[in-house]
């Protein structure tokens, strides 16, 4: 106890020396607190974002792998063998997809059926292909009637669906498959979404399409089979939705793309209802033998596997392979790619914070050790007297360590307070500069290209007020329609209990390391020598 009292007294009577040590420790504590807070914020953001996102994956043909397998090292690429490999590969059927859905890691499996239709005079698609402006859901959309060419395009880019219409009709197997509505990107503004699994010809349409064709909930409109104009279907509008993020980019450079690619022309309905329509169409086409080309509606099935967490997703590949998935297929998750991209600035900042922390601790530690050595040399006489009157060297060392601990911890507590207060604005400021750097790089790339880069990096930025993040559009192939990815550019809290504990731990280590010098000196000193030399 007297050691503690003595230490306190010594601190209070050597203010100058302790204030100097205190200032250094305070600077180290604030810097460390900020650096640790940044790291913690990055880790938390990573965790919470990962928790909030729904991890989904798709199985698709691995063309790159097939091309690689068809190419012999040192020999010119063989196009014929590649074509042969491509011909043998086709998308998985629904039955095959359902086999892999039985993998233990899969939480849920949903699927969609996509088909293409043309409109009628009363029901026209929105088409902005002749304009050069970039429009968003919130901006005024200029529209015009699609040309005949567009209405009846050959579907090179639409799989094996024959002629492509102006509208894309998507049938969903479950509500959970409608990810845009699940994650809030799309919201119903009028009416309601059709019942899950319904066979009724009811659908939801975009607000732009509703406005353009003067449709409202309960309206009935007609769509035409692009391969057989005599075949029509009638759909009832059950609800109207608004897509808050989809951005349409069209212009002269984008000519030649169908209006069906415009998300405003997407019509959503139940899988069962659409399947019934396409099944009827296929049956009708089979009955009609006079035509050489099939007049049936083309359909394309896509399956989406949902996972509880990343670990489950990571284990899915091995499980699917075990269930018979061939090497010519690959499993990909756009959610994870988007997630990793959104974290990039924060991760860069976290790395910077780690290096900064190491430098601060190294320099701070060295300064503290040097200061302690000077301090001990200055107090050599005191050590001599204390040991001469019978105080054990261990206790003398303990007194010095206690003094340093008291000063260090007082300053660490103050530093933690200051660090907690400044860490959020500093983190956000640094984060914004990181995001700005990424955006500047994208802008520079756009300038260099003389147009928007279409490789899926960045095209333009929008601010998503909901997520307080700056969004960079990730271009879809061709950059006609881009889906936004939010960069995390703001954190609300950074310093937490973990940071305080880490800070305390660092404080203890730093004090012990710098005290080591003091202890070594105390143990080396002999009282008689000190006192004799002084005499």
């Amino acid at each position, binding site marked *: 106890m*007297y050691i503690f009292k*003595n230490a306190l*007294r*010594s601190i209070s*009577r*050597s203010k100058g020396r302790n204030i100097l040590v205190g200032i250094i420790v305070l600077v180290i504590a604030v810097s460390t607190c900020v650096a640790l807070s940044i790291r913690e914020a990055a880790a938390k953001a990573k965790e919470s974002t990962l928790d909030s996102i729904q991890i989904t994956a798709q199985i698709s043909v691995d063309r790159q792998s097939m091309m690689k397998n068809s190419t012999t090292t040192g020999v010119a690429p063989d196009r014929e063998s590649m074509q042969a490999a491509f011909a043998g590969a086709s998308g998985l059927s629904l039955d095959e997809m359902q086999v892999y859905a039985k993998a233990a890691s899969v939480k849920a499996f949903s699927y969609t059926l996509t088909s293409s239709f043309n409109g009628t005079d009363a029901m026209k698609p929105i088409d902005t292909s002749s304009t050069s402006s970039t429009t968003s859901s919130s901006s005024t959309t200029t529209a015009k009637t699609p040309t005949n060419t567009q209405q009846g395009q050959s579907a090179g880019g639409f799989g094996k669906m024959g002629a492509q219409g102006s509208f894309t009709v998507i049938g969903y197997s479950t509500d959970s498959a409608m990810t845009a509505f699940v994650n809030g990107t799309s919201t119903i503004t009028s009416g309601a979404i059709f019942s899950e699994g319904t066979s009724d010809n009811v659908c939801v349409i975009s607000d732009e399409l509703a406005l353009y064709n003067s449709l409202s909930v309960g309206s009935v409109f007609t769509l035409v089979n692009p391969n057989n104009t005599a075949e029509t279907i009638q759909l009832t509008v059950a609800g109207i939705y608004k897509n808050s993020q989809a951005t349409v980019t069209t212009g002269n450079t984008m000519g030649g793309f169908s209006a069906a690619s415009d998300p405003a022309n997407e019509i959503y309905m139940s899988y069962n209802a659409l399947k019934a329509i396409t099944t009827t169409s296929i049956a009708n086409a089979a009955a009609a033998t006079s035509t050489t080309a099939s007049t049936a509606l083309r359909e394309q099935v896509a399956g989406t596997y949902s996972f509880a967490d990343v670990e489950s997703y990571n284990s899915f590949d091995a499980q699917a392979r075990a269930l018979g998935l061939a090497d010519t297929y690959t499993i990909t998750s756009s959610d994870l790619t988007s997630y990793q991209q959104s974290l990039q600035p924060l991760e860069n900042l976290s790395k910077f914070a780690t290096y900064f922390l190491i430098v601060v601790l190294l320099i701070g530690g060295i300064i503290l050790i040097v200061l302690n050595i000077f301090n001990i040399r200055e107090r050599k006489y*005191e050590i*001599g*007297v*204390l*040991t*001469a*009157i*019978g*105080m*054990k060297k261990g206790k003398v060392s303990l007194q010095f360590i206690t003094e340093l601990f008291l000063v260090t911890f007082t300053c660490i507590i103050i530093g933690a307070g200051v660090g907690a207060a400044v860490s959020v604005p500093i983190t956000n400021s640094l984060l914004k500069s990181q995001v700005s750097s990424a955006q500047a790089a994208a802008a520079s790339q756009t300038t260099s290209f003389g147009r928007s880069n279409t490789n899926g990096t960045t095209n333009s930025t929008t601010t998503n007020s909901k997520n307080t993040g700056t969004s960079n559009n990730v271009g879809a192939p061709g950059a006609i329609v881009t889906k936004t990815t939010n960069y995390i550019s703001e954190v609300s809290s950074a310093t937490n209990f973990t940071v305080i504990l880490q800070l305390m731990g660092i404080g203890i280590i730093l004090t012990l390391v710098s005290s080591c010098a003091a202890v070594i000196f105390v143990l080396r000193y002999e*009282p*008689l020598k000190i*006192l004799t030399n*002084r*005499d």
Partner: protein
Amino acid sequence: MSLLKLENLSYIYDSAKVKVLDQISYEFDEGKIYAVIGKSGAGKTTLLSLLSGLASPSEGKILFREKDISSLDKYKYRSQYVGVVFQSFNLLQNLTAVENVVLSMDIAGIKQKNKKEFATELLGKVGLSVDESKRRVLKLSGGQQQRVAIARALSYNPDVILADEPTGNLDGETQEEIMSIFRGLANEGKSIILVTHSPIVAKSADVVYELHDLSKNKAKKKDAQGKDAQNKVQAVV
């Protein structure tokens, strides 16, 4: 049984390879004041350092209550059994007189309550006022510091008091006061060993050991009645 006994004690300074003390055999009993006198460099202070356990003999033994002090915990020996009054006081300058005394009691492990009051009282006994006791040592005169050093040595009631020139900075009157304190302590059964040049101190001692040049090999011994006696000692100047 002697309280403190030197058996063939020799000491060589390692640095200079100089033998300062050679084959000394003294005995210090309870209830007596001993004066160790000798010329400068005769090894008086070295002898005090050896007796206090601050230095270890090159040869020979120092026995405290028949136990070799080299086998004892030297810190415990210094903080509980012997009280040392250094020539240059060796007080902690940033502490007050009272704090110096209390710290010494703390180190000795004294559990007594009201240590401050006891220390103030002790300082009063050696002639320091309450006001002076509250001052930092740095602000006290040499004489006052000497008194604080004596009070500190007495604070934990040791069996032996070792003092190097304890009255060196004091006037004649105060010297006598201090000596009377030592006499009182001796009467309580303590052994008082004083290293001094002062004839007043030597005169007040019960036994005087005089360290001589080795060629003379002699020391005076005076008994409690003041009669001179001869006692052979070996000392090297």
